[in-house]
């Protein structure tokens, strides 16, 4: 399929991990989507940025730690971009160092421009 014909889809992740299943099921969808050779990107906005916090240890709550998946989304699952909103990080007292994986930290206006280019936006 030629580059031009790829469909641009963005997951917009706005929820914190573990309190609800949204983030986990969003990742499950990202992984499946990666296999179809489209242009899939992921953005973290609002409480979604907490999903990337490093050092997660879910042993005492009895849940699966899915934060391990973020570092391999791009290389193993063909996700095009992982964007994180700068302002949301700052409001929550998080720095780049606090994140479990390498991401593109961009400001709201820049992220909005990316959203405007999408064919479909999937909020989680």
């Amino acid at each position: 399929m030629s580059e031009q014909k790829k469909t641009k889809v963005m997951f917009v992740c706005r929820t914190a991990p573990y309190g609800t299943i949204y983030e986990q099921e969003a990742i499950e969808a990202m992984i499946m989507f990666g296999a179809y050779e489209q242009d899939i990107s992921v953005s973290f906005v609002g409480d979604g940025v907490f999903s990337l916090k490093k050092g997660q240890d879910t042993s005492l709550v009895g849940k699966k730690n899915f934060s391990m998946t973020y570092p391999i989304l791009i290389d193993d699952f063909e996700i095009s971009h992982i964007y994180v909103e700068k302002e949301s990080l700052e409001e929550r007292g998080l720095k780049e160092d606090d994140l479990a994986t390498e991401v593109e930290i961009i400001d709201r206006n820049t992220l909005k421009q990316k959203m405007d280019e999408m064919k479909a936006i999937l909020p989680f």
Partner: protein
Amino acid sequence: MLHIIKKSPYESSALSDAANYISQNDILLLTEDGIYAAKKGGKLEGFLKGIIQKNQVYCLLADVKARGIQENEIIENVKIIDYKGFVQKVTEHNPMTWS
């Protein structure tokens, strides 16, 4: 009373609603996504510190760890308790969950 919070203060009014009902001798317990209220350096740090000046505030160890928050990232004077500590607080105070 024991006020239990389980939603993030950044996306839900649960904590600020509860704050209106925390009277003398009441205590506050942060669980699940409510944990984020206890994280240092966020824009809501001042809000929790206001509560701490008058009331005991606790957070649940299992949820703190799950969310990758280290002990030194927790606001001062917030006490970390485990599920047994949670049970003990419920025996000492009548619980109300603000979800």
